[in-house]
């Protein structure tokens, strides 16, 4: 892989944790020394070959990496255009890409001598992945989850409890992901000495957006290598869904300096961008400051944060990682959206044609693929990140399709 060049798009963030104007460290003073400690600890760990070796070992033997790059022949045939490859991160242990990041951060927390792990979760995938690594390394784990999300993601709540985590219902606000994140921050500010906050996406104060991206970049690095082996060249486009944007950032980052590779991020358009009931922070939001960073947010005329809506709890966040905000403004990546309805259609299509039941999150990415692939030539190589499997969603999907189980 080419090293980051002087004018590289891969060199961010700057020393203040900024990607252009986005990112930063907008946290209370109590947390500021912790955030600075974390930055130092991560920087030291990154420079330590033993740390990387430990991650590599666990990624292979515990997570099951590398995940395959799979040529989806029947989808390709169906769309009759671009050649569709799926990066199979849904085959990871715990069923999504979330474990990539959790593994890196739990090893860092151990290095820092932290004895208690907290995390927020929306759909529960990050909560399950966090509870999993905490069980593996014997650390107590507290997961904050909104009451609305607990109701719609019961199987994941039970999984977390089986794994030994304590799940704390968050009733403040509207009981969704942003409220869970507020509550996790309140815990962290109270338990500063012992506690490591394991953030699940490429958001939060610096260094989280860069660190989570680094841990997720294994997705793009593998894709690059696998595509070279398979086709002898880079892909022409890469596509991923975006809530906070960690799976997308992980896929995109190793390709940022390759201008021939088109980059598409797919936001959740919910009931349609025009209805206002969506989670498309870039297409339907404006810049603001929340949860430690400046980025695009869903907010009203007074700067109050609005609740998003999506059929997918994992995309239901009113912000987006600051690096995506920067890639959006610079034009390097193109951000598009897919509605609940389109995602449901793609969910069923993928199940029937490929025998892969996708999570509702990557079903949004596939919905976009289904629009663009037919317009592209047959030698166009397109990679979509299948970032999670759909087992968790079958009840919700049945409900939406009017099927009683």
């Amino acid at each position, binding site marked *: 892989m080419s090293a980051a060049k002087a004018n590289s798009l891969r060199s961010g963030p700057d020393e*203040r944790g900024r990607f252009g104007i986005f990112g*930063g*460290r*907008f*946290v*209370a*003073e*109590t*947390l*500021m*020394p*912790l955030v600075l400690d974390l930055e130092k600890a991560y920087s030291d760990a990154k420079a330590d070959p033993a740390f990387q070796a430990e991650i590599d070992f666990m990624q292979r033997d515990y997570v099951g990496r590398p995940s395959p790059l799979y040529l989806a022949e029947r989808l390709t045939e169906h769309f009759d255009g671009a050649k569709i490859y799926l990066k199979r991160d849904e085959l990871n242990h715990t069923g999504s890409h979330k474990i990539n990041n959790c593994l890196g951060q739990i090893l860092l927390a151990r290095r820092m001598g932290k004895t208690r792990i907290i995390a927020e979760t929306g759909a529960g995938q990050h909560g399950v992945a966090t509870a999993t690594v905490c069980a593996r390394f014997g650390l107590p784990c507290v997961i904050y989850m909104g009451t609305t999300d607990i109701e719609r993601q019961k199987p994941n709540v039970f999984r977390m409890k089986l794994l030994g985590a304590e799940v704390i219902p968050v009733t*403040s*606000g509207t009981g969704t992901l*942003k*409220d869970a994140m*507020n509550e996790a*921050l*309140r815990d962290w*500010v*109270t*338990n*500063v000495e012992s506690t490591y906050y394991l953030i699940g996406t490429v958001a939060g104060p610096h260094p989280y957006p860069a660190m989570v991206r680094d841990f997720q970049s294994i997705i793009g690095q593998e894709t690059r290598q696998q595509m070279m082996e398979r086709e002898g060249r880079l892909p022409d486009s890469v596509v991923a869904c975006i809530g906070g944007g960690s799976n997308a950032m992980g896929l995109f980052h190793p390709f940022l300096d390759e201008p021939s590779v088109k980059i598409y991020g797919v936001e959740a358009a919910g009931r349609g961008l025009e209805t206002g009931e969506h989670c498309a922070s870039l297409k339907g939001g*404006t810049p*603001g*400051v*929340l*949860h*430690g960073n*400046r980025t695009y*947010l869903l*907010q009203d005329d*007074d*700067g*109050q*944060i609005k609740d998003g809506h999506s059929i997918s709890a994992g995309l239901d966040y009113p912000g987006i990682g600051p690096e995506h905000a920067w890639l959006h403004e610079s034009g390097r990546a193109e951000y598009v959206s897919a509605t609940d309805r389109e995602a449901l259609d793609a969910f069923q299509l993928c199940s029937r044609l490929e025998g892969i039941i996708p999570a509702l999150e990557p079903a949004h990415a596939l919905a976009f693929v289904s629009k663009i692939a037919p317009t592209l030539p047959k030698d166009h190589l397109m990679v979509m990140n299948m970032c999670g499997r759909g087992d968790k969603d079958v009840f919700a999907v049945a409900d939406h399709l009017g099927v009683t189980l």
Partner: protein
Amino acid sequence: MTTRLEKRFAKLKAEGRAAFVTFITAGDPDAETSFGVLKGLPSAGADVIELGMPFTDPMADGPAIQASSQRALRSGATMLKTLDLVHRFREGDNETPIVLMGYYNPIYHMGVETFLTRACEAGVDGLIVVDLPPEEDDELCVPALKAGLNFIRLATPTTDDKRLPAVLANTSGFVYYVSITGITGSASPEARNVAESVARIKRHTSLPVAVGFGIKTPEQAADIARAADGAVVGSAIVDAIAREIDTDGAVKSGAAERVLTFVRSLADGVHHARAAAAE
């Protein structure tokens, strides 16, 4: 230029007593009740007023102040209405300092320059913005100081001696010492630890040091007032406001008066603290 805050702390120092600093959320539970409480605070003994700018996601606040923000927003509070409350207050009181306290996003959304112009016009004296550490000083702190406002910074138990100078560098008016690691309205601090911490901060600055987080009773307020230049009470007052709301959501008649009676009891604790200690 001497600000109302600087004048007030100088006057209190001359009188040999600590400042009683009160916090309420603007527009809680509605604009009129909130104004009734606000305008009565000085005669109930408040020396400095912190007025919360409501925000949907108050990450550093406990349940009491979270709920107050929600009540205010439900009744239609906005940044413009918060500034209007200050403006109306100033028509009857040109001496009591008002510090706006809250989070950065509503300010950023209005635009920093616009916000500062409007805040100065309304008669605001200072700002406390929880999620703007010194690392982000160029965002609001430096422009606010240029506009003639005080920028009051929080110092916390995690702010060690190495970091204190950076935290104090652009701080003006007073230093707000957060006596515990935690959210507003949680555990109460030990007066002895507070005295040590205040002494530590005073080795680095000549600014007055006010102490807050977790002060709930007149006795605790008095303890803090003996150890610091000011005692801040927020959640306890906000809880008193919450008690004025019926089960059906209506505000009881005479709400502001009863809240102010409670404020007066806290003020008495602070104001007599040192006199009692001297006897």
